[in-house]
């Protein structure tokens, strides 16, 4: 049985109160404005959300579009993690590798992933590959930077313990550096998932896409269906929140030892 403390309930209550207040304000504004092309009412948005399996605007359903986006995010996110974690471990471990790679990383890091879109289309063509490239690019740097910081934060003493037992370099990386850096890597994954989610919606808004939440929002905009846009935004927000809660739960479950040395 999950016990939630009174303090937690009060905390959630405060957050919920603000959300309800915003919804009421939205609904009131929609009633006053009374124009679907400026502000759709919550009931209209809810109408779309309550029938998630029905075709929207003559196309795929809300669920189908969500699944397309989710699949793209997960694929791009996975590719980014597979690349960024080993590279980050190497940079954090070897000052030589860091000297070579750090300047390039610091120059590339601040460029918004969407700015790469024209190149992505030129290299990979219109479609899924360009979108995956943009997502992976957006997710790559937060994982990389956090992995590097995680390795830098490893206590020298832990490495000495491994050396005392004659660990090989690979064993030191596998048994000390990777597990010791894992809490920070996890933080990197959490941050980058949120960025990947933003990237997918933005990338799907570009011409040539035929499915996904970003596509749905853009398509609805072209048809002036602001209620569908609102519904798409709600789904994006909820999935983002859900993913963040999952990452936090993982952090509490697996890294309870962090900082309690």
């Amino acid at each position, binding site marked *: 049985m999950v016990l939630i403390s009174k303090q937690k309930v009060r905390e959630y209550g405060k957050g919920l109160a603000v959300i309800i207040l915003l919804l009421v304000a939205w609904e009131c504004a929609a009633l006053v404005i009374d124009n679907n092309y400026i502000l759709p009412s919550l009931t209209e948005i809810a109408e779309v959300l309550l029938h998630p399996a029905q075709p929207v605007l003559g196309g795929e359903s809300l669920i189908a579009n969500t699944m397309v986006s989710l699949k793209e995010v997960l694929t791009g996110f996975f590719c980014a993690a597979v690349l960024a974690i080993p590279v980050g471990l190497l940079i954090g471990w070897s000052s030589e590798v860091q000297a070579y790679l750090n300047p390039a990383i610091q120059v590339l890091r601040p460029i918004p992933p969407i700015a790469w879109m024209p190149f992505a289309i030129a290299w990979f063509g219109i479609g899924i590959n360009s979108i995956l490239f943009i997502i992976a690019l957006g997710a790559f740097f937060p994982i990389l930077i956090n992995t590097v910081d995680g390795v830098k934060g490893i206590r020298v003493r*832990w490495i*000495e313990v491994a050396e*005392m*037992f004659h660990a090989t370099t690979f*064993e030191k990386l596998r048994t000390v550096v990777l*597990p010791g850096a*894992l809490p920070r890597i996890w933080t990197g994954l959490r941050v980058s998932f949120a960025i990947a989610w933003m990237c997918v919606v933005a990338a799907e808004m570009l011409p040539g896409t035929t499915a996904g939440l970003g596509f749905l929002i853009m398509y609805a905009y072209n048809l002036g269906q602001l209620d569908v846009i609102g519904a798409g935004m709600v789904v994006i927000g909820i999935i983002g929140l859900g993913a963040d809660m999952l990452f936090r739960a993982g952090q509490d479950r697996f890294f309870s030892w962090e900082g309690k*040395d």
Partner: protein
Amino acid sequence: MAEPVLSISGIEKTFRGESESCPALSGVSFDIAAEEIICIMGPSGCGKSTLLRIIGGLEHEDKGSIHTRAEPLGEGVSAAMIFQDHALFPWLSVEENIIYGLRLSAQKVPDTEVHRRVDDLLSLIHLTSFARSLPHELSGGMKQRVSVARALAIRPSILLMDEPFSALDIFTRRELEDEILRIRQELKTTILMVTHNPEEAVYIADRIIILSERPGVVAGIVTVPLPHPRSPADPDFIRIREEVAGRVKGKNVVRCGIQHG
């Protein structure tokens, strides 16, 4: 004296920084007999810890040699170190910490033997019921006992202890000193321990080696002929303690920025 398990001869070590050079040890020589407990004492910064780190393989001597019986101390012969700050891996359970060294390729211990050793060691340190606990769930004294078990797991030729109990309160400290004596009795372990506490040295050591001020050389060796268990209230105990304290007392030396001990 019995056949030496470890012969240390002419160890010299100088730490070289960018602008200054700091001699730490200048020709340290002594023998350690099997099952002997030797305490190393000396003024602050005399190179005690450096000597221990050299024997443990964490630093390299500039000159001199360390031989175990007839063989040079190398990959096959093990010296295991216990640090002042337990240095347990916070992400591993008590049990996993103890078997850490046995899982590395340098040891190659079969699984059945690993389990047998961990069970024996857990009961030796009276922590069987804490096998699955994480280090942060244990008290300071319990953590240090796990650290002792982790070092003993690889069946080292010699146990090196660098001020292992100085971070603990007086009661825990005495308890662990007794435990070390019991472990020596049961496992026939040879122990080399750095301490700055004359009472601790006289309480557990067979011989106390006193190093001079930096650069350290062996300034004297005090044999403690008292039988165990020793009482700090015993007049002979007090006499030896005062003698040791008097010989250790030196001017406070200026510590080099690059020294370790």
